[in-house]
């Protein structure tokens, strides 16, 4: 039962262009969403988060959009840089279970110079 889905296992983008990573979730109880970035052989690094009371959160080159009715969120990276090449995990949690964050399977982003 995949509660957090990332249907694109990989994505290639030219340097300078926009990268859009998508995430869908099934559990309407989720109210907090996070994006993590992971390089090989390293732990996931927190990037940006959004609460369900908002529909957009921005931090530098990273913007997360949340569409609650569609149970969909996306991460935009503008402009994309080669150092952004990594696996990006979407994750979600809910107020009733702050103890656990559910991860999606990840999308591998390659930014081509």
């Amino acid at each position: 039962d995949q509660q957090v889905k990332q249907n694109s296992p990989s994505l290639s983008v030219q340097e300078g262009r926009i990268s859009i990573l998508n995430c869908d979730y099934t559990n309407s109880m989720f109210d907090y969403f996070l994006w993590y970035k992971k390089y090989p052989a390293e732990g996931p690094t927190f990037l940006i988060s959004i609460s369900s009371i908002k529909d957009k959160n921005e931090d530098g080159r990273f913007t997360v959009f949340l569409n609650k009715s569609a149970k969909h969120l996306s991460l935009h990276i503008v402009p994309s840089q080669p150092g952004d090449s990594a696996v990006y995990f979407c994750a979600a949690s809910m107020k009733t279970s702050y103890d656990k964050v559910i991860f999606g399977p990840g999308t591998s982003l390659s930014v081509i110079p």
Partner: protein
Amino acid sequence: EPEVTQTPSHQVTQMGQEVILRCVPISNHLYFYWYRQILGQKVEFLVSFYNNEISEKSEIFDDQFSVERPDGSNFTLKIRSTKLEDSAMYFCAGQWISGNTIYFGEGSWLTVV
């Protein structure tokens, strides 16, 4: 910036042996987690720990697994009798008392042979 540190970074062990993975969370984190990632698969929740007891665990976290925080600083994951399928990267993580952002360590790569 404070970090979650994990030891060892890599351990090779024979099937059936006991393994202890150690983590030093960020001080004044109160919630602690173990996650794992089998090669090529997604990051999976194992267990959460708060106030010196397990608060939630996944179906993966069976009787061969245990966690403890013996001295108020180190947080350990013990695998009593390792199996080949326990080979994975194990991530320790911590969380502040409020807020949902979880901060991960670099991971401990366990290879069971």
